[in-house]
């Protein structure tokens, strides 16, 4: 569920065609903010069978689950199905409603960050572990990793994992106050980059143990890792030490080396600091091969979707391997020499990456990395 539409096909098609999912925000007031644009989802279909869908975040998750269930059957005992979701905001919009005049008590419960995950578990009939990973904008990656841990430890047979976040005034005001939002277009790794724009999305994957499910699959999660910066609450470590450790550990867990990496999905927010640090880290981790491994960022296309970002990017990595094409970095026209990498610029690139590395960073000094393998074609 992205600003491009309500299913995986719309997401992939939007990326490959270079569509721009950024628009003026219409769902809540933004006229007092410096920046009032973002990756807003304009249409949310009414959901069949949902008696009472709570906050918008839950609605996004339910919509993503509709698409997931249309593609994959969940076949396991309810107690052996887990739901693991990453988020930066949970259902915080419920707090805005609860504190408004005439606010309902129920809205305050929606505001608990784990409410949407429990709502999704109820809707799917999952009675195994229900986990909410609150690692800010790296949460989606950690959620997928946690899902893999649950399967590896044989705690469950199926995990619905992913990430979500809904745009709301709460977060728009926050990033506006931080002066992180750009008034121009988002330009990851570009000389003229001037900030990010937020977006909203929900991305879910169905994870099982290798060989447990017949039928087509997108790929495998080979390794995951996280590491704290321990340096600043709202900015990445100046040397990217946490991100480097996460990327190296994820590769190590996958039993791979940088020589095996064929594509990098970067966090690439389009902020001055993030992109330079991330490019430095990727050059250190990938070594001489950094110049020949395609790198992209999709944040100019759909906005920075926070808790959903890493899950969306993981799906994009696997789709790139399946379709034999890597989407370009929208908005990147003149790469910053300080961010020198093999950026996918101007047009999608016709390559079929089997092994991908996906990197994510978040508030609090959170860093996470995933190593993914696309299913053989």
């Amino acid at each position, binding site marked *: 569920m992205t600003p491009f539409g309500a299913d995986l096909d719309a997401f992939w098609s939007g990326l490959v065609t270079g569509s721009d999912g950024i628009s003026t925000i219409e769902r809540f007031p933004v006229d007092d903010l410096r920046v009032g644009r973002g990756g807003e989802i304009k249409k949310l279909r009414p959901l069949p069978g949902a008696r009472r869908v709570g906050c918008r975040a839950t609605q996004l998750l339910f919509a993503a689950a509709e698409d997931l269930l249309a593609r994959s059957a969940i076949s396991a005992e309810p107690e052996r199905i887990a739901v693991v979701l990453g988020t930066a905001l949970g259902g915080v919009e419920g*707090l805005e409603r609860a504190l408004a005049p005439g606010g309902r008590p129920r809205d305050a419960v929606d505001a608990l*960050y784990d409410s949407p995950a429990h709502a999704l578990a109820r809707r799917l009939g999952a009675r195994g*572990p229900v986990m909410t990973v609150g690692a800010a904008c790296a949460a989606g990656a950690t959620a997928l990793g946690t899902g893999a*841990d649950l399967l590896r430890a044989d705690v469950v047979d199926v995990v619905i994992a992913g990430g979500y976040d809904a745009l709301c005034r709460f977060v728009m005001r926050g990033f506006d106050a*931080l002066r992180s939002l750009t008034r121009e277009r988002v330009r990851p790794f570009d000389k003229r980059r001037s900030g990010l724009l937020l977006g909203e999305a929900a991305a879910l994957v169905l994870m099982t143990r290798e060989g447990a499910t017949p039928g087509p699959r997108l790929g495998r999660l080979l390794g995951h890792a996280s590491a704290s910066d321990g*340096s600043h*609450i709202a900015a990445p470590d100046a040397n990217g030490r946490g991100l480097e450790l996460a990327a190296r550990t994820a590769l190590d867990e996958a039993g791979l080396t940088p020589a095996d990496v064929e594509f990098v999905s970067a966090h690439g927010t389009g902020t001055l600091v993030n992109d330079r640090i991330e490019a430095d880290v990727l050059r250190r981790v990938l070594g001489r091969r950094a110049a020949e491994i395609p790198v992209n960022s999709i944040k100019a296309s759909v906005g920075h979707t926070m808790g959903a970002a890493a899950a969306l990017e993981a799906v994009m990595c696997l789709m790139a391997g399946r379709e034999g094409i890597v989407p370009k970095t929208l908005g990147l026209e003149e790469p910053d020499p300080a961010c020198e990498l093999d950026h996918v610029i101007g047009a999608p690139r016709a390559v079929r990456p089997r092994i991908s590395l996906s990197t994510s960073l978040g508030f609090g000094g959170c860093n996470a990395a995933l190593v993914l393998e696309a299913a053989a074609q």
Partner: protein
Amino acid sequence: MKGTAVEGVAVLTGWGQGIQALPADASRAAAGRAVIPLARPALEGERFRRATRECLLGVAAVDALLRENHISREAVKGSATALIYVTAGAYGASNHAWVAADTARPAKPDDRPSERRRGAVSGTLHFPYTAPSVMSGEVAIEFGLTGPYGILIGGAAATIDGLWQATLLLEAGRCERALVLAVETFEDCAELYARARWLVRRPLVEAAACVLLTPGALRTRYDAPRAASPLEARVRARAGETLACAPLVALALAREDGATGPIGVTGEWRGRRAGLYWY
């Protein structure tokens, strides 16, 4: 595969420091009070001037753990220490203040303190503190923790999940020690909790608790028991409702009982109960 051991536990609650401060019966001791608050720790340093109370409570809990177990800060610094942070709602206070600030009018000289506070949280430096990850981030900065992290949102069952994650990291050799930290605050959102009585029991007792896990001889089993362990019931009776802190308080009680061998803790949240057993 390696096992794990519980190396130390520290508990701060609205009742005082350590489990010796817990009353025999929390309900009776609360004497009708809905919330038993924890004071803002008096930590020195410019960095803590704007930090929220929940951040400082997390730092204070880890500091207490190190002090009580005679562990130096240097010993936990670096990438060999994992930090797992769990809370059901400690971010509520900063979220509440941030939302309230949006509706605040310009301050007037005769404003009540609560009105003045609204204006004070609308700035650049306050928004990051609305993120649960910033609470553990402050702890990581203070103690120089640069290893793996986990940040789980939920009550006692989520803390069991967090303890399990810590044992996985240790067993896989991804860290040499793991801190599992839980913080819960209620006072700033007391009126909202008062409207959600079906979700939380009384009295709500603010708490911060921390456990240090290290490699050891005991294996673990992680499952979904139907019933509460005796420890879970004891924690509820003695401490009151501490949400995510409850399983860590349970470990502290078990250590007070002299338990060094097999031990099991359980926790429930939103109808799901999880258990972790060292055997």
